[in-house]
């Protein structure tokens, strides 16, 4: 709770960690990310934790995830770099796609009218977003896909994404790795309020849209998924290209969502669901006035 404060709300720097490449492989980028105290953060490379990744069964020859990512350099200043998935991912990806996705999207991922969209040209990032959030494979066709535990592990997801990407090389949304260690939370907050809060609400809780659609809660989204959604515009969400929201800005938004929206500071007590004055009103009336009426009931005569 106190991470977001300076001075008397300061926290030991030992809690501070960094996402770095780990962001790509874990859904939770680690404990208490260092928002606002970037200078103390030390980047952690993916190799340090590759052993914790589950080894995919039946794929003993699959390249190690960490070596696959060595190719990309985390040096760029924007805080986001896009991953080139290794060619070795393509073949197992095709097999997974054929077994799990092709019944709707077709064997060549070109979709079928009225059932499933054409995936060609959408890019690995789009596929990664839908699969890693568990929205695909779809639970109930025809209804807005809901977030659920993903069907595939991280490596399988990347393999599927790699295969779909291989159909249209270089086109579409790539998979981002977000390094929030030097993110600007203030900028992220301003951009979030301007671009995201109108649908996802200022607390990121999400809300109902028209015609049964809804803006989902942001409380489980990883930084990678946030940037993938910004770039690909899943469902009813608008697409934000780099001409609209730059990579740096997308990084800041992701950092804000991870550091503030998902871990809000609630120094004032219980957040009451973060749904604003209606919840507060119920608490004030039922708990506040209600308890005081009971006190009246005790003090006074009851006949």
């Amino acid at each position, binding site marked *: 709770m106190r991470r977001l404060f300076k001075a008397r709300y300061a926290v030991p720097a030992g809690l501070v960690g960094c996402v770095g490449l780990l962001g790509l492989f874990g859904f939770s980028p680690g404990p208490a990310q260092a928002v606002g105290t970037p200078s103390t953060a030390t980047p952690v490379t993916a190799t340090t934790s590759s052993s914790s990744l589950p080894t995919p069964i039946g794929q003993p020859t699959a390249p190690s995830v960490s070596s696959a990512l060595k190719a990309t350099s985390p040096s760029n200043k924007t805080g986001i770099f896009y991953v080139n998935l290794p060619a070795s991912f393509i073949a197992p990806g095709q097999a997974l796609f054929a077994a799990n996705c092709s019944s709707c999207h077709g064997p060549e991922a070109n979709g079928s009218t009225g059932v499933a969209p054409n995936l060609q040209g959408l890019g690995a990032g789009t596929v990664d977003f839908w699969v890693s959030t568990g929205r695909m494979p779809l639970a109930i066709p025809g209804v807005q896909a809901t977030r659920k535990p993903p069907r595939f592990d991280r490596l399988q997801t990347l393999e599927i994404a790699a295969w779909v990407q291989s159909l249209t090389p270089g086109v579409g949304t790539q998979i981002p790795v977000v390094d929030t260690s030097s993110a600007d939370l203030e900028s992220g907050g301003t951009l979030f309020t301007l671009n995201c809060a109108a649908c996802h609400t200022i607390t990121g809780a999400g809300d109902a*849209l028209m*015609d049964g659609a809804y803006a989902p809660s942001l409380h489980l989204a990883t930084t990678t998924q946030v940037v993938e959604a910004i770039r690909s515009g899943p469902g*009813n969400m608008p697409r*934000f290209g780099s*001409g609209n929201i730059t990579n740096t800005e997308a990084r800041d938004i992701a950092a804000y969502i991870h550091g503030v929206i998902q871990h809000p500071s609630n120094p004032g*007590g219980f957040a009451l669901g973060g749904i604003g004055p209606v919840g507060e009103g119920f608490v004030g009336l039922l708990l506040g006035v209600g308890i005081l009426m009971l006190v009246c009931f005790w003090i006074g005569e009851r006949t």
Partner: protein
Amino acid sequence: MSDESPRTEGPLPPAALDDPHLQPFARHPEGAQAVAAVTMVIGFIGFIGFGVAYWIGSSTQWEALTLGVGMLALGFGVTAWGKYLMPQGPFVEERHEFHSTDAERDAMTAAVAERGGMVVKRRKLLGGLFALGSATMGIVLLFPLVRSLGPKPGETLFETNWKRGSKLVTVDGRQITVDDLEVGGVLTVFPKGFEGSSPDQVILIRLASELQPLQSPGRTDWGVAGYVAYSKMCTHLGCPVGLYQHQTQQLVCPCHQSIFNVLAGAVPEFGPAPRPLPQLPITVDATGLLRANGGFDQAVGPGFWERP
């Protein structure tokens, strides 16, 4: 008080323990006193705790807990003292009619009517002049008290800072080129030089270019390269219409859920908004910058009396 019967001096001794009106617990005064005393001690400890919590700069929760428990316990103790250990009723108090007698009323009426009538009738000129003077004072005082508060609306409600050739910029002043938005993208823009200005806020949407001709008749050239621009001020209550549903091509006002159809000139489809969002004609210049091709053709935002 009309009742002048003598009042007995002296205290209110406690009720006898067999008084049927006593609270059950009050029949055990020692127990009641013990409870009240213990809670008051808890209250005292709570307040000391608050002092400590404040001194060491503890959290809001510790401050509230110590202070709240202190006040709750002290209040409970005092109430229990009053409820169980103080003289209990029921006591009876007589009401007295507080209205005056008819004679007193008549005298009052007579005083008002006769004296007032007498002086006013005799000096009609003075009465009239006083009325005239005070009424005039009341009216002229309205000028500093009301008129000074703000300017007259004039034409300002019909005007925005958009004019032909205004560059579309973000709130940071960044100019928008025709390549900046992806299809399905959305951006809040302002005329250059008026970033952040409320009546000038415009929502810029990039549609697939095959959708743009579906715009309302006569306005097919108001967009360019799939870009269309609408006033972001809701025509209902002026909230920013910031919610864009990309698949259904709807703009929704987050305040009161008015829905506007982007493909049909932002006409309201549902909800309380009565009018379409005014559209801003835009074009692209030779350098690829998006510019306004004119201002709005009507007042933006909610309705008002002077609006034709």
